Every structure is written in structure tokens, then in C-alpha cells.
């Protein structure tokens, strides 16, 4: 237990040091990865803890990103304290609405219907004035954190923005960890294990799944909001099925049902994109191979590595 906590704190300490290096490129890259890590954790609530494999999670990411862009005035800064809750609220509401339909299906049908709704959202932003076409929209001015003239931090400052994202990551992590220990969270895990039995014990599982779906949409919205703020523009690509697939891969790579695993999955995924991207034009081919290998040889994902090391150490110890 304590070793685990120590490992997490070391990881956090390293992340805290990143902006101190002064390497602007890497700070932005890690900031982007942290955003994707939040996104992956939000999906893990569905895939890893509730047993709902959503293949359309990018929709809520993208809806929140577009919400920031649309709710911000063209040449002025919007208030962070308005625009962030609004963007997150909108993506949660969209997820609630979509959940009403998709949660009536199961298994492969659920995967397909979540994908279909995400494609629907993609084309809403791609083909209507709402989204500004395939070029997307610029977010000219980042939201301001000022409260009645007092400015606790400045999102235009790269270091401040980095720490703001890191703080959101920690908050989302603690929030999800707490929820999963609650009676509500235990029901979600029960649904993943045996939904039929949960129903026969008197749980109206549809409502629980709907709440989880909306919650995951809202948390994915936090990531989408941050993404728009970091990059300053939004495109329909944010809602594309590639994006849904990527985040699913992060969760699978990291080990489903493990929040730290989801974070690690986001780091490994982005790391592979960067490294293989410099090696070859066909980097996606290499990445595909690595992912297939990971699924074959590391079925529990990255999160299973500590347990394996521990077991092999204990095994070695008993031989001596």
C-alpha cells in the first residue's frame, strides 16, 4: 500500500518539476498528455469500472472544446469561472441525452451506437455553421481567471496553465477514486461484474449506468475544455472516431479499471506518437504492432506491471 502511494507521489513530484526545466516544447507536450490522461480516466469510469465500452467518448471531449470556443467573446477573454462549468455542464448534458438511447443496448451494439452518436456530433460541427466547418474555430483569447479584478493565476502564462491542468488531473483522480469507494461506485463495479444479478437484487441499473455515462461525459468535458485552452483552436477532428479510438487504446494500454493505469496509458501513447513519429512516416504501423504486442503479452496493461515484478521477485526469493 505504502509503496504504491510513494510511487504516485514520486510521479506527481516529477510532473511538478516539468515547467522548472524551462523547456517550453516539453512543457506543452506534457500538458497535452495530462489533458489526455484526464480524458482517459473519464473513459475508464465507463470501460474499466462499469463495463460499458464506449467507442464515442470523443464526442463529449469535442463538445466541451467547441463550447469554450463558442461561448468566448471574439476579442475578449471569457471568465474561466463561467466558461469552464458551462462547457463541462453542456458535455455532461449531451452525454445524459445520448445515454438515454445508447444504454438500452449492450455489448457490440453499445459500441456501434456510441460510435454512431459520436459521428453524428462530428458532422454537426463539421457541416453546420455551429462548428465553422472542417477548419474549426480559433479561441483567440484564453479565458481569464480574474475574480473582481483579482487574478489568482493567468492561463496565458504557460507555467500557470500547466499547473492548472495538473491540478485538474489530481482533482479528477481524487474525485473518481472517492466515487468508486462510495455505494454508488460499488454498484457500478457490480454492474460490470454481473448486471443481471444486480437487477435481481433490486438495483435499477439503467439509472446507475446513465449517471455514470453523464458523469464520464462531464469529466471528458473537462479534458476537452483544457485542450481548447492549451491549443487555442478547435476542429471537428476532436470529435472524430480516431480520437475515440485513441483514448480507448490509452485505457486498454494502461489497464482497464485502474486510474493510474489510464494516466500511464496516456503517457505511453503520446510518447509512442512522438518517438515513432520522428523515426518514420509509417509510425502508425509500428504503434499498431506495439499495441497488439501489449494486448497479447500484458493483458492487464501497464497497471499490471508492478504486480508482476512483485510476484517474480517473491518467486525468485523463495527459490533461494
Amino acid at each position, binding site marked *: 500500500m505504502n509503496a504504491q502511494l510513494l510511487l504516485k507521489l514520486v510521479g506527481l513530484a516529477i510532473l511538478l518539476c516539468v515547467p522548472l526545466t524551462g523547456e517550453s516544447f516539453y512543457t506543452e507536450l506534457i500538458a497535452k498528455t495530462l489533458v489526455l490522461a484526464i480524458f482517459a480516466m473519464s473513459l475508464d469510469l465507463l470501460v474499466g469500472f462499469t463495463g460499458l465500452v464506449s467507442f464515442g467518448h470523443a464526442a463529449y471531449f469535442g463538445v466541451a472544446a467547441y463550447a469554450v470556443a463558442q461561448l468566448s467573446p471574439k476579442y475578449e477573454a471569457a471568465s474561466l469561472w463561467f466558461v469552464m462549468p458551462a462547457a463541462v455542464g453542456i458535455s455532461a448534458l449531451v452525454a445524459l441525452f445520448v445515454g438515454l438511447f445508447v444504454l438500452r443496448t449492450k455489448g457490440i451494439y453499445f459500441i456501434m451506437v456510441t460510435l454512431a452518436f459520436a459521428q453524428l456530433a462530428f458532422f454537426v460541427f463539421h457541416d453546420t455553421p455551429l462548428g465553422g466547418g472542417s477548419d474549426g474555430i480559433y479561441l483567440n483569447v484564453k479565458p481569464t481567471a480574474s475574480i473582481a479584478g483579482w487574478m489568482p493565476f493567468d492561463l496565458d502564462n504557460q507555467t500557470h496553465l500547466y499547473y492548472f491542468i495538473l491540478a485538474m488531473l489530481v482533482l479528477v483522480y481524487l474525485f473518481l477514486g*472517492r*466515487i468508486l*469507494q*462510495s*455505494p*454508488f*461506485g*460499488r*454498484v457500478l463495479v*457490480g454492474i460490470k*461484474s*454481473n448486471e*443481471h*444479478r*444486480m*437487477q*435481481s*437484487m*433490486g*438495483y*435499477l*441499473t439503467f*439509472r*446507475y449506468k446513465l*449517471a455514470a455515462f453523464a458523469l464520464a461525459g462531464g469529466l471528458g468535458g473537462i479534458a476537452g475544455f483544457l485542450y481548447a485552452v492549451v491549443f487555442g483552436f478547435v476542429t471537428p477532428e476532436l470529435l472524430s472516431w480516431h480520437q475515440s479510438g485513441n483514448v480507448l487504446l490509452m485505457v486498454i494500454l494502461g489497464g482497464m479499471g485502474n486510474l493510474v493505469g489510464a494516466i500511464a496509458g496516456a503517457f505511453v501513447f503520446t510518447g509512442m506518437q512522438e518517438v515513432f513519429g520522428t523515426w518514420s512516416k509509417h509510425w502508425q504501423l509500428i504503434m499498431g504492432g506495439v499495441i497488439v504486442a501489449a494486448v497479447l503479452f500484458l493483458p492487464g496493461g501497464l497497471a499490471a506491471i508492478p504486480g508482476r515484478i512483485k510476484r517474480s521477485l517473491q518467486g525468485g526469493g523463495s527459490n533461494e
Partner: protein
Amino acid sequence: MSDNHNEALLVAKKITRRFGGLVANQDVCVDLIRGKVHVLLGPNGAGKSTCINMLSGDLPPSDGQILFMGKDITGLTAAQRSLVGIGRSYQRTNIFPKFTVLENVRLAAQSRNQQPWRIFSKAQEQKWALDKARACIEEAGLGKKVDWVSGVLSHGEQRQLEIAMVLATDAQVMLLDEPLAGMGSDESAKMVEVLKRLKPTRAILLVEHDMDAVFAVADTITVMVNGQVLESGPPAQIKASVAVQQAYLGSEDSFHV
């Protein structure tokens, strides 16, 4: 309502279930009375599981009516029936194999006071649910395995776990689908004791093949053949019935009807 002792809790009136052209249950009537054990007997394929599935809400009847304490519950889902007080165990063990015994039963207990909005409270700190779970585990005779992962328990122990889970939901009507299947004679005897202990305050429907156990606990026996009720009455009447003997009890030839 009549007096508490002979109160008919669950009444099935001529329930029928068709699967396409196949009539799995036809005009089946069952009364479950508080303080009584009602045993459903019949060869494989007689429709016992279909009947119990209709009573529990896992399968909607094609025809007929189901009343719980006088109220029509035919349209209620399994979850809704559980909430009014009808609990069931399954013929094929149906548990949460990765959870501990305690967590399996704690989840069952939690279902009576779900509080889904309390997302910042810890489930493991809900003492009432834990206490109740422990008591039900003890009652079902699994006290020594509270912290075991349920998937590694023996088949018989998993059956006991199922009973503990039904108990934890405060079910007034217990629908038990072959709870003794796969149990050794010691475990069976213990389970029969548990059933006898539970009987006075509940109405129990039992599907069971173990004849010693059946005649040890039954107050009423209904024999089903080919989806229909062949005969229903007290154990002595069933034992003496020529029709039942021909269809089921004595004759080896017709056992596999």
C-alpha cells in the same frame, strides 16, 4: 389481509409462457403462503425454471396474472420485484466471482437503502450494511469464509452464498432454484436446517430434486409435467398419488419425459 400466519404473499393465477410454438408453462397456479415451503417438482424440462423466472420477473408471462400481497405485479421488472420483497437464487450460480463473500452480500444489503447520491461516503463505512451482511453470511453457514474471494469457493459454498444474498435483501418471498444442487450430504442437511429456520417468517418456493430434503421441509408440493400442473397438495397426497408415481416418482421409464 387475512391473519399474518396464513397470509398468501405471492399468488400466480394461470400463468402461461409461450416460446414461439412451444408452451413452456400453461395455466400454472401457485400460492406462496407465509410460514410455508412450497416445493415445485418435475422432471427436467417440465417448466419449473420457466415458472420461477416468471415469478421473479426475469421472464414476462404471456398470459395470466401474478399478485403480491393482493397487488398485481405482473408488469414489474425483476429489480422492482426485488424491491417489493421477492428475492431469488439461481439454478446456475450467479454471484460476483471477483468480490469477497462479504462484498457480495454487502451489495445485496446495500440494495435496501441505496443512497446513490452520497457519492462521497465510503461504502465500507456503512456499518449497517456490513453488520447485516455478516449476519446473513453467518445465517447461511458461511461464517468462516467471510473474507474469501467468492469465485474460489466450492460449488456448495457458492450456493450458500446465494442464500445469504437473498437473505440480505430482506426478501419475504424467497424463490430458490435448486439450492442444494451439487452439495454434499452434510452441506445439504445444514441447508435444510437453514430453510426450516427461515420458514416461519417467510414464504418459500423451492425447486429441488433431493427427495429427502423435499419431504423434510415441504408443506405443499406441486408436480409439473410438460409445462402443466399435474397435481398439487400436501406431501402425503403427492406420495400417494398414482398419477405422480406414474409420471415422475416411481417409474424409471417416464422419468425422462
